[in-house]
């Protein structure tokens, strides 16, 4: 076991928790949080893959690292957009929820199947 494997496993677990939160939590803001956790778990998997491929005097393979930087910025943009949507929804309806039509609360349950 080394640092790469350790943080890779940590990332895998975070993906699991993030996915669970994204699917089961009914509050949109908590879903956004869970998405961020899921994303960072995925990035850690990239990090583990980069670290274990260390060569040529570098501490890690720079290609996955560059990809993670790109992906972090994209995830931030996604978060900003999701939060703006949640807040606008709050303004329009006084509520922030995905379920206006009964079964909507479970509408994202399909997300895991």
């Amino acid at each position, binding site marked *: 076991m080394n640092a790469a494997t350790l943080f890779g496993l940590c990332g895998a677990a975070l993906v699991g928790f993030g996915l669970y939160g994204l699917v089961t939590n009914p509050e949109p803001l908590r879903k956004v949080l869970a998405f961020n956790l899921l994303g960072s778990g995925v990035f850690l998997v990239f990090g583990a893959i980069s670290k274990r491929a260390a060569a040529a005097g570098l501490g890690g393979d720079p290609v996955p690292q560059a990809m993670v930087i*790109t992906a972090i910025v994209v995830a931030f943009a996604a978060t900003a957009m999701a939060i703006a949507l949640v807040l606008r929804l709050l303004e329009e309806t006084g509520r922030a929820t995905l379920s206006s039509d009964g079964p909507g609360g479970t509408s994202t349950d399909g997300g895991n199947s």
Partner: protein
Amino acid sequence: MPDATVLPDATTAGGVLLVLAIVLPVTSVLLSLALGGRQVERIACVLMPCGLGVAFIIFADVWRSGERLTYIVGDWTPPLGIALRADGLSAAMMVTIAIVVCAVGAFAHADFNTRAAAVETRAPFVFWVMLIAIWGAMNMIFLGGDLFTLYVALELLTFAAVPLVCLDGRAETLQAALRYLLFALLGSILYLVGTALLYGSYGTLDIVLLSRRIHLEPATLAAATLMTVGLFAKTALFPLHLWLPPAHAGAPAAASAVLSAVVVKGSFFLVVRLWFDAMPGTLGSAGAQLIGALGAAAIVFGSVVALRQQRLKLLIAYSTVAQIGYLFLMFPLAFDTVSAQLQSAGALTGGMLQAISHATAKAAMFMAAGLIYAALGHDRIAELGGIAQALPMTVFAFALGGVSLIGLPPSGGFLAKWLLLEAAVVTGQWWWAMVMLAGGLFTSGYMFMVLSRALVPAHEPLKLKTIVPRYQQAAALTLALASLLSGLVALGPVDVFQAGRPEAMMVGSR
């Protein structure tokens, strides 16, 4: 011969066109932002003929030569750099999407006119920029040769599509947009984790290099599964379709047309790239049957729910859920049990033709529905009586779109379903043939439901809320005709789908 395929990639003549297909929309987006909303429609008007031209030239090139066009970005060959590649599939899809985008652009002039505006206004500005961005993202998806570049393109597509859903700012559409965004983000993050695993195993994300290095092992299987599930969520394949109907039905007509006809094809195309090109021998018989079963379930479920709709736009949206199902039937049908590989034979051609005919037909139908809504002030199916007399061209366009969805000759839908049926018969998988025939019956059912109401003469003359411009009707009709006539490719470039595809060579040398 294997030796020929080991040669490193190099930029081919005409490869510059691939760069152009991506740079043109990107430049237009940047220009639109810099110059502001009043110029944006003009920019789009300049871009559209250019983009259409580029798409046609690429198509002609690929068709004539039967070879893949390649461009090595920055002169760095994969695995270090990124390659753009256009094979028959990309060329055909590019032309289709270009036609649809141009028709939508013509159609949208009425609703999102910016030329006469004194100041920049929100909805038109956002609409045009996002339309251009969707086009660029789709071209990137068709041409991208690297799975991570394709991830960025997917995100580009998502961020361009979501704002279109809630362009009118009503609470329902905001909710639909939020749900769509969450599904899309889930989809792309699952895709991303798959690319991480593939890179970890093979040290490249280039599709051609991957296809040579890939072999069955746990990490590959996990990667492929996660990526596929993520892309299914973005394509709205049953049972991950829940976001689609409210999102597509609630958007303005021009936006619905783009979302339903164009955007879902992006993630579908990636599924095809992944399984047919990156890992042709990995799917396995069970996997192919499973994907087919999801497709079949989508056809049955989408059609049945469509039959029960009271609103025209929702009916069309559920019809999209069903038609997406057809796209995935090609996986079991393209599976060759002897070589245990997906093969680019008739089933692939059929599936891609289905995507093309659906893109054109569905865009036409959403445009027609939008015009009907504008004219009547509602889209309740039960109260459509008399609309056929008031807007004959529109209803005709809607009906022609339906003809293609049902799969009547000579439409593209007919040729697609015929090729798929043929593959089902040849491979002895009669159950998929049953599903397709049942789906055709269902489709006729809901088309009949709408048309029978629309063709009933009204008791009193209809009072139309607005005069619908002829060019909008013409745009819808053009797309419907395109869908109808796309079946005629059987006489011409139907073999273009096989152009530049490596499997064709491998099968030949076997």
